[in-house]
């Protein structure tokens, strides 16, 4: 099995995302199924990292169940949050969506 950073927790075998069980610093390189990915911004525990490539419109799976649809294509190792995942029920509101994602808008 390809190497994956021990901080990435897989909750259910069919999940398309991992959950961070610890923090990751900005600029850190983490292993995701043997692939080395640079994390551009600091991420706190509980945040999600893509385990596989997810196409735009595809359901994102966590706990073995859909938690919404990708609003854009997501590469393995990418942070999955408000900027690329949308609820299939009610939209998520936040104080400032851009800063909450911790991602650069570029």
């Amino acid at each position, binding site marked *: 099995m390809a190497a994956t950073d021990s901080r990435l*927790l897989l*909750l259910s075998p069919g999940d398309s995302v991992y*959950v*961070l*069980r*610890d923090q990751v610093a900005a600029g850190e390189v983490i292993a995701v199924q043997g692939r080395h990915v640079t994390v551009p911004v600091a*991420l*706190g*525990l*509980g*945040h*999600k990292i893509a385990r596989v490539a997810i196409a735009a419109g595809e359901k994102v799976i*966590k*706990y073995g*169940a*859909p*938690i*919404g649809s990708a609003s854009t294509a997501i590469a393995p190792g990418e942070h*999955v*949050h*408000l900027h690329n*995942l*949308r*609820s*299939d*029920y*009610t*939209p*998520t*509101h*936040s*104080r400032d*969506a851009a800063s*909450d994602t911790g991602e650069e808008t570029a």
Partner: protein
Amino acid sequence: MNNAAKTAPALRGYPRRDGRKGIRNVIAVAYLVECAHHVAREIAGIDRAAAHVIGFPGCFPNVYAQKMMERLCTHPNVGAVMIVSLGCESFDRDRLARVVAESGRPVETLVIQNAGGTRSTIAAGQDWVRARAAELAAAPTVPMDVSELVVGTVCGGSDGTSGITGNPAAGVAFDRLVAAGATCIFEETGELIGCEEIMAARAATPELAVELRASVDKAARYYATLGFGSFAVGNAEGGLTTIEEKSLGAYMKSGQSPISGLIKPGDIPPRGGLYLMDVVPDGEVRFGFPNISDNAEIVEMMASGAHCTLFVTGRGSVVGSALAPVIKIAANPHMYRRLAEDMDINAGRILEGAASVAEVGAEIFDFVSALAAGKQSASEALGHQEFILTYKSFEPIGPACLPV
């Protein structure tokens, strides 16, 4: 295991006329409109450990609020009730006093407009509370079994850790409680959006499955009208992205037991088992958000008889509750270290590999038993007695909701 069972202190309860037992014996000081709140608070201030303030702020009548106050004033943890009325509010204080009296509890009504005003009402109320507190402190207890407990669960200030540590551990505790014959209540249908199918599959009967699904559909419609899901800014900062993701995490609190029924706030579950509480009002959207903060949910489970509440928090809620103790379960290990004095259980250890979900679940089960043996929870010892009750309207539950 056997050792722990031998050394664990015995559960004891205060027997009530309706057959239920309380794990506490407190005086409820109940104000019937915000205008009487200050006087009620001052009355209870004479003995804050013995006298807990509850109340309804509105001046307009509300069937739901009347039912909630009647249930809360006859909650098994309540041994006596002081009703504080301004005098001109719409709340039916005579009916409330009658219900309490019929339950066998001492009850006294003070009407500020007839009692000489603020100072004299406070003085009269404090005298009554002092006398009742002495009686309640000396009241005998009887042995109590785990099967006689009613336990609620709520999560508040959730983050991405809640659904993978604290909530599944609470679920394990629920499974053990249900297996022992206890009654467990989970709730907030607005936080079960996306879980309707997997939840319906656990229903005791196909008819109940239809009701469970319908309750979540109602919540989705209700929140869609309001334009906001049950999702706060802090949830997103903690790594949660969508309501269905938060829901799946929240759903873990319910454990694996079959679902025995669907109740609404104030309905008393007829026997042991796992119950979903439908907290979203019926009919058109009338009075705003179903539950404006976590304590509104705790109050509704107390109205259905909950002796205590398991409260899982990731971001770090510090609340407790009037009348029924709250057990605080920290889902996030970093938060636990920051707020250790407010927490009872550190489920964050699961993330750090220091404990399994099953071990933390067993700890929670033992903590519930210890509460019923007299141990105080952190929020209880810190004096937290939050309470909130607002306007709602419900239709009675249908026959398919309590099948067995």
